[in-house]
């Protein structure tokens, strides 16, 4: 069946069974591959996107649940890496393999949308659902603080 939702500011209409996870609709139907598959069980955060501004695990969200709503993926931050978090990610040289970073960035974006001055505990709470096997956690923490400072001063 056809399901419509807003993806990164554009309305998309997809043909998929209603129980198809949003992750696979975004990746295979729409063709935006920044959002990654890691565990299929909401345990690793690689598939994190925003639903109406809140972070969700797209591997566990049926596409039927997003009909008529706003979905944002890593591609929405900016193509030219001008978003404060993308800039901070590059400044702190966060990515190694990079596979988890789309999810990390979307969790971090959701955190900073509500809290422009996160404490270490706030970062722990917002980010501990996102696994990184390359071990980039400390750089992620530093980059979030840097981006938060830029956003406060903007």
């Amino acid at each position, binding site marked *: 069946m056809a399901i419509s939702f807003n993806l990164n500011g554009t309305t998309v209409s997809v043909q998929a069974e209603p129980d198809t996870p949003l992750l696979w609709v975004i990746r295979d139907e729409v063709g935006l591959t920044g959002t990654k598959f890691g565990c299929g069980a909401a345990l690793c955060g690689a598939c994190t996107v925003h639903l109406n501004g809140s972070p969700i695990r797209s591997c566990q969200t049926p596409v039927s649940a997003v009909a008529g709503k706003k979905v944002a993926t890593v591609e929405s931050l900016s193509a030219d890496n001008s978003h404060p978090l993308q800039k901070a990610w*590059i400044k702190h040289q966060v990515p190694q393999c990079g*596979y988890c970073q789309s999810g990390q960035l979307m969790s971090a974006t959701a955190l900073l949308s509500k809290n422009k001055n996160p404490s270490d505990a706030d970062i722990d709470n917002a980010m*501990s659902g996102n696994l990184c096997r390359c071990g*980039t956690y400390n750089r992620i923490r530093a980059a979030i603080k840097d981006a938060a400072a830029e956003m406060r001063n903007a």
Partner: protein
Amino acid sequence: MTTTRREFLKSASLGTGVAVLSMYVPGMGGKEAQAAGSMHTPNVWVHIADDNTITLISHMSEMGQGVHTSLPMLIAEELNVDINKVKVTTAPADPAYVNGLLGAQITGGSTSIRDAWEKLRIGGAQVRTMLIQAAANKWGVDASSLTAENGMVSGGGNSATYGSLAAAAASIPVPKDVKLKDASDFRLVGKAIPRLDAPSKVNGTAIFGIDAKVPGMVYASIEMSPVIEGKPVSFDAEAAKKMPGVIDIVAIDNGVAVVADTYWHAFSARKKIKSIKWDLGAGANLSTAEMWAGTRAAEKTVDAIKVRPDVGDAKAAIAGAAKVVKAEYMTQLMGHQQLEPTVFIADVRGDTCVLTGSTQFQQGAQGTAAAVLGIKPENVTVNTTLLGGGFGRRVCVDYAGQAAQVSKAVGRPVKILWTREDEMKNDFYRPLGLNRLEAGLDASGKPVGIKHQLTSKSITQVLFGLPKKTLDPFMVEAQVAPYNIPNTAHDLIIHDYGFRPGYLRAVSHTMNCFANESFMDELAAAAGADPVAYRLSLLQGKENERFVAVLKLAAEKAGWGRKLPKGRALGVALMEGYGTYMAQVAEVSVTGGVVKVHKVTVACDCGHTVNPGIVSQQLEGGIIYGLSGALYGDITVKNGRVEQSNFNDFRIVRQNESPEISVHLIASTEKPGGVGEPSTSLIGPAVANAIAAAAGKRVRSMPLEKGLKSA
């Protein structure tokens, strides 16, 4: 010149929209036939396009370790070009790209920089020399009057871009003797150049294996035998075949593959396959307990292999010692669990096959696909994407065989993708290891003799056919510690407990360093000595200078000896691995049974660094990877089946558990050491030693939190 190479060069050139004009490959049969286009390949390492775009052909896969920045730096250094304008592509499967340190086209073993250090600088200098010669020929001047800078050859009032000279340069024989820059003239090497792949990894445009597509591609999800190496005998696919999008359901060697138009359709239908009967094979009753029991039995029944000739007489020295210390250490089975699951595309057409995806072993993928298809290896092309982590998992190329079988069966290009559960239960696992140590101390507490026996499984026997009863060098890494002890005996007992093994980041360094460095603290305790001072007292002599330097630096930076609150302590470890000298100090507290690692200080002498920024990344990442295995990660087996299934029961370090890490690099002009792996191995003993100091409990088995419960 082979079809493989031509096909690769065509595909590699897609990024710049041009085709191959010419190339010359030393030892590969001379000049390639001319073709229309504007990409020039003076030697096996470099393409230069008319528009002056320079592309490094990397013989190493980018799996996070930064080689698609550090390797082009080596080329750009000698070519005198802006590193930010250099593009990178991964080499095809070809003998020209064999890793000289491993003898196969493998990315692993912390060898990338060590293998490339001279190879790629020579490659860059060759191309520079050829470009200058082409300009000299063109202008009728002496080559020595010309310089190559910033993508231009110039001199005597003439100048030309590398791109405009590349066609002529590519027709000049590759010079044998070229002069390399003196280290004092380096502009790039040694600098923390930002990673070239970082921009694409923060805006979703980086293409990993899972993102790659080929025209007409369909997807497969494979129900694999619950016991590794089991085979499907029969199954009922009727219900599954009726599921949306299903194209076919085919049996392959170790499973049943559901092929569909989308991944989700393939995965959904896979769950509808009924009544699968498996031939589970010989491993159907295996358990971790049985593996350990067999390992212990082998200590008594299997002849030991000498790791190195005995020094003096350790047995006699221990027998005559004032005090004897004995301990055994256990290191658990471990899975890789890179975040991008196993994924690979095969496109089999007649007697050819194109493979695309995440691999650490292009030659192996090529050979495996060729073998299962019964075609010539040179008819198999390998296109390597970015890897969403490797850690050794993608050295084992079972996925190439699976993808090739499925593609052949359905006559279409197929992408296979594993689930996390598939990944957890069908890995190639780091062997478990039992290290037994015994030392004698004299009245002053100084060791007079030491025996160290490792009993474990040989990965190299299973995967590469190393003859039995032969020393496997990948089992005894760092088993011989640097300490000056007059009588030593180092032995290896190889026991095959029958479960699929694989090389995992740092391989046997982890078990051997855990044993050696834990034991060193136990000896210091028996001697009533400080662990750092005790180690330093055993590291006299010029040959140990680099060990002393990293140990002192780590201790100083960590504030070794400072007073800490009750229940909180520092622990130290020291090791050489991959030509890199390293010390770590972990600051740890223990509350109840919970271990919290607050901070890790690491001092590292890895010789000449190409990119110290990437070195730091690797040390940090190795510590977190090692900490996950040291504290939490555990693979257990029952009835031949891995008991863990996903990240809920295979625990890895998360953001809230990640310690602060302080990296200190020692400047050096020694030849480069490897940095991808060593830091993984020191964190276990550093934390175990800190736990002993903080909680008064010596944990001699990993994972440490589990070991702490029974300590």
